[in-house]
């Protein structure tokens, strides 16, 4: 009898289903995975070390570039850690704006995840639909911060500016008739909040569309049901959080159990799965999008009623208004000191975590009282999930590796940091 030897296969780092720069070394027995060894770090930029050499404010844009599909949630955790050390209170309107954008970000993230995951498993159409809705949400990002992705909108003490009164509109072009232009701008006549409200009215129908394409789709079910099963105790031991844990039936959500910002006032449900396989995690994320939509609606209603400041008036942390800076000597000094030397954060250590779309995203900050962090540790949810890859992939077929990578919703910006 011929000697049977295991076969080693390199998957990535340029494979489209590897979601970025994952090099996966698969040890195969025929088509069955015996061992999966992910090699990461190809996108390692040493964000944590860079942050030690920057002032607290200068590191905010780095946070966007960690998980670059859920930008504002990363900023939220970072700002919360600083605010905790400073023992700074954030105005309530800023809290609601943060909650609203956290949920918009969650929808953005899940839409990209859904499109990419379906594409990996062979369903092309969902990707195109998902990007249609992402476009509207990116416009909202752009309207408040000027950037479609890397917003740097959350600042320690609040958010950089209030929501604009006017939603930007499409302009006339040669290729657009007046009727087309009027149609494109139909829901952009009011403020940004009106546009978001209009989106939340449309969005549940869109989710129904995706579900029509996938939920009862026979091919989709064949590729996801019973794949990558995690039992709840094992999921906890492996450090899984977020939809990875909820898919296994553990109703754990930081927004409910350790509420931060304005989540205590929000009315929403935590969807949980039953079997802990890829299909259940898909269902959990679909339901999360509906729940996020509900939260956004509550925030819009509140924000329309309650004007107020959106950033703290402590000018050691947040800059004074332009007008005050130009007319008042003390404010000028504050402005100058804040943007050159930066703020000093009291000595101590703090850990702040948010329910990021992918799981628990935490910032552990050690300050020695200087104008720069002494140590910043980013706890990325995808890191723990990818570490569980070996265990989840064992015994599956090689094609299932793609489904498992997809279901973990990994983004290398946060895993490699």
């Amino acid at each position, binding site marked *: 009898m011929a000697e049977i030897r295991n076969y080693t296969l390199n998957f990535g780092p340029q494979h489209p289903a590897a979601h970025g720069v994952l090099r996966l070394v698969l040890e195969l027995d025929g088509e069955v995975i015996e061992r999966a060894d992910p090699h990461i770090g190809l996108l390692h930029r040493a964000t944590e070390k860079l942050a030690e050499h920057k002032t607290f404010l*200068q590191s905010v844009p780095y946070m966007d570039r960690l998980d670059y599909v859920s930008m504002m949630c990363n900023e939220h955790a970072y700002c919360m850690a600083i605010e905790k050390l400073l023992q700074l209170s954030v105005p309530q309107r800023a809290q609601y704006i943060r909650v609203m954008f956290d949920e918009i970000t969650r929808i953005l993230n899940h839409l990209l995840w859904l499109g990419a995951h379906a594409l990996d498993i062979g369903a092309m159409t969902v990707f195109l639909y998902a990007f249609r809705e992402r476009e509207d949400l990116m416009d909202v990002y752009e309207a408040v911060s000027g950037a479609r992705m890397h917003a740097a909108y959350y600042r320690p003490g609040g958010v950089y500016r209030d929501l604009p009164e006017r939603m930007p509109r499409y302009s006339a072009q040669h290729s657009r008739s007046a009727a087309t232009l009027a149609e494109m701008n139909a829901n952009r006549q009011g403020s940004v909040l009106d546009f978001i409200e209009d989106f939340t009215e449309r969005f549940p129908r869109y989710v129904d569309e995706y579900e029509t394409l996938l939920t009862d789709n026979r091919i989709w079910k064949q590729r996801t049901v019973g794949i990558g099963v995690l039992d709840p105790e094992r999921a*906890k031991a492996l*450090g899984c959080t977020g939809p990875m844990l909820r898919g296994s039936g553990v109703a754990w959500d930081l927004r409910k159990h350790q509420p931060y910002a304005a989540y205590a006032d929000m009315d929403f449900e935590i969807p949980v799965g039953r079997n802990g396989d890829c299909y259940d995690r898909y269902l959990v994320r679909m339901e999360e999008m509906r729940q996020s939509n509900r939260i956004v609606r509550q925030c819009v209603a509140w924000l329309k009623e309650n004007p107020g400041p959106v950033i703290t008036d402590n000018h*050691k942390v947040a800059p004074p208004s332009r007008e005050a800076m130009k007319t008042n000597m003390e404010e000028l000094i504050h402005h100058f000191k804040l943007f050159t030397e930066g703020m*000093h954060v009291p000595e101590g250590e703090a850990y702040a975590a948010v329910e990021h779309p992918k799981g628990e995203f*935490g910032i552990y900050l050690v300050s*020695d009282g200087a104008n720069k962090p002494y140590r910043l540790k980013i*706890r990325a949810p995808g890191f723990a999930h990818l570490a569980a890859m070996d265990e989840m992939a064992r015994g599956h077929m090689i094609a299932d590796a793609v489904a498992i990578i997809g279901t973990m919703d990994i983004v290398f910006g946060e895993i490699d940091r």
Partner: protein
Amino acid sequence: MPLTPEALLARLREAIGEDLVKAVLALGEVTLEVAPENWLATCTRLRDQAGLSFDTLIDLCGVDYSAYREDSWEGRRFAVVIHLLSVKRNHRVRLRTFCADDDLPLVDSLVNVWPAANWFEREAFDLYGIVFAGHPDLRRLLTDYGFIGHPFRKDFPLSGHVEMRYDPDMRRVIYQPVTVEPREVTPRILREKNYGDTDVENGRG
């Protein structure tokens, strides 16, 4: 209902007993310090004790304290910090241990307590050179294949030691000493205690 931090601290004191070196309650977070020889036993106890049941290791990281407050640090240099979460009981704790030897920082691995520790320990080894005894596969994780040094140590320059470029003569990518100068735009400033007697809370200088 989750425990208050005070009640949690009392329960932790009871569970760890003699082995506890230091316990701090600040900003609503409980921080404990244990000696490296009790590291593994303490962690196992925190996981298994019914009233605590820390079932998830959220984070494990290394810290290099050598430059803390302008090099005035007198304790040992390397620490391992873990953040634990109990999903079952909804509470958190932070645990720290200082490695006994600055030249060969060594601490027991927690892989057998929480499998999640595997990659976190590889990362701490890679970036700080902390060795985890009993780890099944202590390879570098984030840095390049064949990387030399531990880049997150405070004595490792931000710009590194080597850079990479393509050499047209040798027709391959080569390493050479860095050509960039380390540049610091904003210096690190540490103010003395009670500087200017500022009232930071109310923003009055």
